[in-house]
């Protein structure tokens, strides 16, 4: 285990966390997609470094899947969707950025506290980053809650999956291959369904604002 690869992994982990923060505070849909793509690139880079440092060849395969799926295919699909829906230049106005950032910081501290005792037990060279992975998951989770438009919500969902994937790499050198393939398939099918849904929602409500989806409530 060289210290350089350890440093590199930490570096990419920090990039992931920064991008997660950038996402929760970003109002423009187009920038969100760019951030998501960058997150995918950081994820691939981190996975390749772990694979190189440990000689786990199956990690190269999962890095390849991530590259195809999260750097090319899904961003391409998202671009198509926002073009066809005409929301490329949409700006969401309702989020309160300072508060969101503060809550985000609390979430990061919480995740580090939660993950610290666990990550010491891991045998992975990337174990220090488990806290970052958990923080990314929780930040994306918060993004899904705070957004009221469909596209940012979906990007939050995808970014949460990025965090989970990174957690798997950080904690255990990735899941078994068959599981990883299954997860990739689920994510791909999921995003396709969500994409189709957005068109239906727009057709029904003339808007992609999820706040319209509040008819079903308890009286």
């Amino acid at each position, binding site marked *: 285990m060289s210290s350089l690869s350890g440093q590199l992994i930490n570096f990419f982990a920090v990039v992931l966390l920064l991008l997660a923060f950038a996402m929760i505070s970003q109002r423009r849909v187009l920038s969100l997609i760019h951030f998501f793509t960058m997150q995918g690139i950081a994820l691939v880079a981190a996975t390749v470094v772990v694979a190189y440092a440990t000689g786990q060849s199956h990690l190269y395969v999962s890095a390849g899947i991530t590259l195809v799926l999260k750097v090319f295919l899904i961003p391409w699909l998202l671009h198509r969707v926002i073009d066809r829906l005409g929301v490329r230049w949409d700006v969401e106005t309702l989020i309160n950025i300072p508060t969101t950032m503060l809550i985000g910081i609390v979430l990061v501290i919480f995740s580090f506290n939660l993950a610290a005792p666990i990550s010491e037990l891991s045998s992975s060279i990337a174990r220090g980053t488990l806290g970052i992975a958990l923080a990314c998951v929780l930040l994306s989770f918060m993004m899904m809650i705070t957004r009221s438009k469909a596209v940012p919500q979906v990007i939050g969902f995808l970014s949460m999956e990025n965090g989970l994937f990174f957690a798997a790499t950080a904690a255990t050198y990735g899941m078994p291959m*068959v599981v990883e393939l299954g997860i990739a398939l*689920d994510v791909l*099918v999921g995003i396709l369904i969500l994409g189709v849904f957005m068109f239906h929602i727009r057709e029904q409500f003339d808007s992609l604002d999820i706040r319209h989806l509040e008819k079903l409530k308890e009286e």
Partner: protein
Amino acid sequence: MIDALFLVLGIPLLGAAVLGLTGHRDFARDINAAFSLGTLIAAGALTARVISEGPIFAWDREFFVDPLNVFLVTLTAFVAFTTALFSRPYMQVEKEHGKMTPNRLRLYHSMYQLFSFTMLLALLTNNMGILWVAMEAATLTTVLLVSVYRTAASLEAAWKYFILCGVGIAQALFGTVLLYMAAEKVVGAEGGALLWTHLDAVKGQLDPRIITLAFAFLFIGYGTKVGLVPVHNWLPDAHAEGPTPVSAVLSGLLLNVALYAILRCKVLTDGALQGPLAGQLMIGFGLLSVVAAAFFISRQRDAKRMFAYSSIEHMGLMTFAFGVGGPVATYAGLLHMTVHSLIKSAIFFAVGHASQKAGTQIMQEIRGLIRVSPMVGWGLMLGTLAILGMPPFGVFASEFLILTTAMREQPWATPFLLLALGVAFASMFGRVQPMVFGETALKPLPHQPAAIPVFIHLGLGLMLGLYIPPYLDEWYRQAARMVAG
């Protein structure tokens, strides 16, 4: 005979492909039922084999069948088959009403089979990772099923369902990662560290700190799919807005399978922690779900929503029973799982016909079912009495067992349970009674309702209340021993 296992999974998968091509034709309804029947027969063969030979493995231990999952496999295949029977006349009417176009029918039939496949895969796999993949795939197929009408309300329900369950199940994935991390240290990465049987063998050596956190995430994740309060919000919407056959399989099958996933995790956690943490979590959330759902029931106007809340109540009761642990409570939980599946899907069949006839799901506008269609009326009345725990139906037996065990093991919980059951009884019976016996101006149903599925289910529910066949009894005991440790 790996063949039976192969067939149980292969038939629905083949069915999904065939119906993906032909699902819009008129005969697709029969093909759908035929594939489900095939699955049921294969499941029966598998069961016979497990009874005679004990647990079996297949495909390099990736799949396994033991008393716990074989009983759920049979139940799943059975309810999937009867629901397919119910779906035949139901979808015919929906098509005549113009709610189902040929494209939608094709999607519906194909996804129905794919949903059966994902359920059975989740039950039969030995790999905790594949279990997760199958649960997520089940979410995806049911999202498409719930939104099949493409109305505003159904889109909203499906979107909520997707986002909430997507988030929930992502927590379960994190839990699975942690489980793998704990297992890898003991079993090694090569030795199939996510295979449940391997984990079960070494559960005493798993690191308790990691497992505690892993179970918390797995419980929240799969608990979302079980519909435990406070992460239940998707459930009533998805039940109310989707087609009724989908409500029946959601309540009857999907919730069970999610609870099954929690049970598998609980067995590992109990072994690793040597403490009651998993049980306590399940008791707490189970009880909360029972009580909260009972009060939600009292505020419903929509028939399917009301019975959806009743499902939350019963899933809470099962979670509570499994949390209490021990052979008796676990036995009662498994029995309750069976009778709840049977009776709740029977109720949804009846409600489906009733609301099709009345053109609404609002309970106040459905009146006098007994005159419109005695079959549907009696089905709904008996089903409601059964689900409310009236003797001699099976729900009474299992609830009685759960309550008596609770009095002994967790006496403080008993008043809450009794209160909740009382509130649920008063509010549900009060609403269903006028639906069945009230005055109506509606004419009798023009088509024959699917009475056979309703009464087969009610009959089985009645039988389980009066007499549990010895092999079934033995089966529950074995499964309970496994879960209770």
